[in-house]
């Protein structure tokens, strides 16, 4: 029974990782950029929600709705200032530039908020504490279920966006051939900015979930980035649904590892990631494909 419980908990954990990874996957799929500051952006989102909750007392979920426009604007700013410029230079430039950005965000947060660990779990109400005892060895938490449902809805919505809307077609077109896209009237700058804004907004959602299900501090970013990246790689870079599956796989790997020894949880995830890399030998599919 404990293995079943581990897998179920792993799926809930994995859904959280999938949400974290989603934005990273979008940016890679559309612009071929891996944003090394992605985790820090998620943590920044958590802090924005925290500030709103702290000053108004509203539920974190409501606060997130308020925080969303702020994060979207931030996404546009990020694209127009740093990412757009780094796209024009070499392959290493986006990595270097976003790495520097990561350090800046972490330390600015450190200055503003001190190294204290915080959580929004207490403010989220009943959802954090409720759970159902399905059998003697298996319990399902309300929060885990919520995150899982949100993750599936999120990926589903993105899939719909990409396959049914003009903006989605334009985004896929730009991802596949930005020059040809320009020639048929698609403004690639706008598309890229939209993709980044979307990625940042979803990262903030990941930050919200991080804050509620666990704790966060200014230096939590890099850990989230690694998990997000592992999820993307395990599921296959450039595949949207692959990122969801990769997240779930990572979550399960970690919880199953924890069953063997609590200190092994993160390690098993890393090993799964490395194993996937070894099997794939670094060869990747590089198109933003919609699973059909």
């Amino acid at each position, binding site marked *: 029974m404990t293995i079943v419980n581990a897998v179920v908990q792993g799926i809930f954990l994995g859904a959280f990782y999938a949400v974290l990874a989603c934005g990273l996957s979008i940016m*890679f799929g559309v612009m071929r950029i*891996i944003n*090394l500051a992605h985790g820090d952006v998620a943590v920044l989102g958590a802090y924005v929600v925290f500030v709103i909750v702290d000053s108004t007392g509203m539920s974190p979920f409501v606060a997130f709705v308020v925080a969303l426009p702020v994060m979207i604007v931030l996404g546009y700013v990020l694209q127009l200032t*740093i990412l757009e*410029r*780094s796209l024009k*230079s*070499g*392959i*290493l*430039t986006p*990595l*270097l*530039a*976003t*790495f*520097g*950005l*990561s*350090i*800046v965000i*972490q*330390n*600015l947060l*450190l*200055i503003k908020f001190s190294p204290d660990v915080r959580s929004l779990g207490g403010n989220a109400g009943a959802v954090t504490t409720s759970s159902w005892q399905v059998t003697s060895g298996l319990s399902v938490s309300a929060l885990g279920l919520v995150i899982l449902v949100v993750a599936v809805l999120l990926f589903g919505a993105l899939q719909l966006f990409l396959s049914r809307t003009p903006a989605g077609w334009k985004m896929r077109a730009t991802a596949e051939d930005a020059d040809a896209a320009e020639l048929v009237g698609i403004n690639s700058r706008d598309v890229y900015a939209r993709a980044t804004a979307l990625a940042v907004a979803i990262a903030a959602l990941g930050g919200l979930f991080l804050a509620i299900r666990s704790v966060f501090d200014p230096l939590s970013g*890099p850990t989230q*980035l*690694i998990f997000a*990246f*592992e999820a993307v*790689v395990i599921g296959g*870079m450039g595949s949207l649904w692959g990122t969801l599956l990769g997240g779930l796989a990572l979550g399960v790997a970690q919880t199953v590892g924890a069953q063997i020894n609590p*200190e092994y949880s*993160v*390690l098993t995830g*890393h*090993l799964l*990631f*490395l194993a996937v*890399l*070894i099997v794939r*030998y*670094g060869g*990747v599919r590089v198109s933003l494909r919609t699973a059909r």
Partner: protein
Amino acid sequence: MRVRRWTRTSKGFTGATIAIAILLATVPLVFDPNVVQKLTNLLILVLLASMWNALAGYGGLLSVGQQAFIGIGAYGTVFFAGFGVSPYPAMVLATLVAGLISIPISFLALRLRAAQFAIGMWVIAEVISIFVRLDQNLGAGTGISLIQLNQYAPNFRQAYTFWLALAFTVIFLAALFVLLRSPLGLSLQAIRDDEDAARSLGVRVASRKRLLFVLAGFGCGAAGVLIGANTLFIETGSIFSVQWSAYMIFMVLVGGLGTFEGPILGAILLFGIQTTFTQGGPWYLVGLGATATLFALALPRGIWGTIEERLGLRLLPVGYRVVEMKREETTA
């Protein structure tokens, strides 16, 4: 047209460099242990910067995980010393281990492309860090010290560590220098400029990159050994921290990616900043990060690279110069 390697400037500067190295050897005899410790830190930074540049600047390999080898070097020393090996020989052994471990790692890592290589190396560093942390003999989560060094009086300990640091720095810089001047070096340049074109000309890209990767493995291992010796207490959280990569990136980006002298300049700059801003804390890190990003976007060649480009200056002769021959010389 003639192809020359040495110019008057570069001959002079190389001579000066050798003189500086000899001069540096006298440091422990002149200064007190505190200063010696600080200068050891400078040498460590020079070593780290040069090794990271060897990977990224000459190999196009952006690693965010060199701290793996730093940690192996530091903990390796503790490990061997724990078995009764004398501390300084243990340090050399640990450096060798770090370099040797980089070989099997390279067979996975070098197959990966840019972002995957960067983060893949980071994950490898995390994995090694976790394994070390799980080992009770190595202090587990609380850290461990190289108590065997206590057998030396502080002055001597500091001096030996400094000399070892100087030796390592000279050896690795010299190795890199020789590498770059050899036909290997030219093929590395070709790989950096256009990998596919180089491959089609028969350049064995993979083995060239492996050479750089392993050299950097040895070098970062050596740096880790020195860090452990210089600070006496190590724990996984800080020795395997990605912060080291941040420092390396800053030094090389600001100093000059892909130039030989650039990383040294970057190391001196970082050293200067660190000594001036000891209370800085997060603000100084904000500055480092922002500067790195700025340089990546606006000054990708770094300070030295830009100077080199503008003035056509090359202080250490790692490149080739095509020289116009004077009229009289062509009638030979």
